[in-house]
């Protein structure tokens, strides 16, 4: 065992290490204060030795320090004050107004008189802590950037969705789409009622389209739809409007047009379609026919009922052997 004087004489050694070292008696009187601590705190040995530590550093009176320090003097095990849970044991300002981050250990040393001294050693881990803080900032920035990108992507998707919603054109055929059909047809029906004018529609369906798709492939099927759409547009009048209604179904709206007149237009379209020849590469050329159902607005029905009548007529044309125009 060491005498108290030997422990203090060890100042020769403790002054040579780059670790803050101080030794306390039970009443928290400082009995050793090494040069490292002088440099860190600016407090000279002669000013602090034999004085109570809490006069200089009142925070030590907090239970989280004092209670644990007391246990040392009661013959308890050594103590660790880690840098993350305490930052520092003795505040030592740095030029940038920050404090030295310390990892502190407190060990009891017994002297022959039976007294226990607390040897407190503070390791400077400021650089280490700063490096980790830097890594954290980078990490946070990276996360923020990812977040930002996600937001932009979401906004892009939303505007795409909005665009789709606002769009009135069918992408494949460049005819109007069914959404546009509903709003336009509704307007035409209103107008027809108000001015008591005739209004007709034609519902066109490609015959055996599934077979064409299966045999020639979807790309060829798409070409058929594109061509037929073009014919439909070309052979209707300028004030008629044409729509892709579903997969291989089209609708033409004929304002100011009676049933008889619309049958004529539909027949013209049917003829034109029939004479079209498709020549897929390395395969047999083929033609397609269409079945058409016509209905004239009765002035009272709803939009759904109106379209359903044209649909029914179209099915009648199918049942009658396809490639023809039927009306209700």
């Amino acid at each position: 065992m060491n005498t108290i004087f030997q422990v203090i004489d060890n100042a020769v050694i403790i002054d040579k290490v780059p670790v803050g070292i101080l030794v306390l008696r039970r009443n928290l009187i400082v009995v050793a204060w090494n040069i490292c601590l002088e440099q860190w705190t600016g407090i000279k040995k002669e000013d602090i030795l034999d004085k109570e530590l809490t006069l200089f550093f009142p925070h030590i009176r907090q239970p989280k320090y004092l209670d644990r320090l007391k246990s040392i003097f009661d013959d308890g095990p050594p103590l660790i004050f880690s840098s993350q849970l305490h930052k520092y044991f003795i505040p030592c300002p740095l030029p940038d107004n920050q404090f030295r981050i310390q990892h502190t250990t407190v060990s009891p040393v017994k002297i022959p008189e039976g007294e226990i001294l607390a040897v407190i050693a503070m390791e400077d881990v400021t650089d280490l802590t700063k490096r980790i803080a830097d890594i954290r900032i980078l990490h946070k920035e990276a996360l923020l950037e990812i977040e930002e990108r996600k937001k932009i992507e979401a906004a892009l998707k939303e505007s795409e969705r909005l665009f789709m919603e606002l769009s009135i054109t069918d992408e494949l055929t460049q005819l109007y789409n069914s959404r546009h059909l509903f709003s336009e047809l509704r307007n035409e029906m209103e107008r027809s009622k108000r001015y008591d004018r005739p209004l007709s529609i034609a519902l066109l369906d490609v015959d055996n389209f599934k077979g064409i798709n299966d045999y020639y492939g979807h790309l060829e099927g798409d070409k058929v739809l594109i061509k037929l759409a073009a014919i439909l547009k070309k052979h209707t009048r300028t004030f008629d409007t044409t729509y892709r209604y579903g997969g291989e179904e089209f609708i033409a709206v004929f304002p100011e047009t009676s049933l008889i007149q619309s049958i004529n237009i539909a027949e013209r379209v049917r003829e034109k379609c029939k004479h079209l020849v498709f020549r897929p590469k390395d395969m047999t050329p083929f033609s397609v026919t269409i079945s058409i159902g016509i209905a004239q607005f009765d002035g009272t029905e709803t939009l759904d009922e109106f379209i359903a009548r044209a649909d029914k007529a179209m099915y009648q044309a199918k049942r009658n052997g396809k490639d023809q125009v039927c009306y209700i």
Partner: protein
Amino acid sequence: MVAPKDEQLDALKEIVNIGVGKAAGMLNDLISAHIHLQVPLIKVFDIHDLGKEFGDLVNQPLSAVHLMFKGSFSGTSSLVFPPESAVKLVDMLIGTEEVSEDFNALKKGTLTEVGNILLNGVMGSLSNILGKSIEYNLPTYVEGTIISLLGAPDVDPNTTVLLVQTRFRVETHDIVGDIILLFEVGAFDNLLKAIDQAISSSPRL
């Protein structure tokens, strides 16, 4: 190994309870969250049953804080965390775990302090109540499997293990840790003797 009698085991339970309770108070002060510590289980067994006692945890990497002690009874007290608990605890105390050597150093420091507080509570309570002086080394932090941490080849096969399973509850976090005391040959018998003395002399126990 001398099997402890029921009253000795009860006394031991109370001593550990007092120590862990004190430690919980200190941890509460330190971390501004309420920590609840329970002592649900105390077990005494031979070191060669270590694998059996730890079941599923045997091959898992664990984090441990060791505190070696010498004196009337000598041995090592350890706080052992399963990996998820260590991660949760570090996460709660210093933020999300990162894979870097620097961060490992901080993690080590933090877990060492938590282990230090808990083990000091238990050891302080043992030495105070039993009136025996104990000398300690500085606590150390290690990672490995339970066998590599405690059952090193040079450990005497007659070593007695005192397992205290403590469950920490930190608000919504479920952090579990075990306090394990290894007593060198003869040391556990000395501990039981000291307990007997304490029982006969103190009205408290």
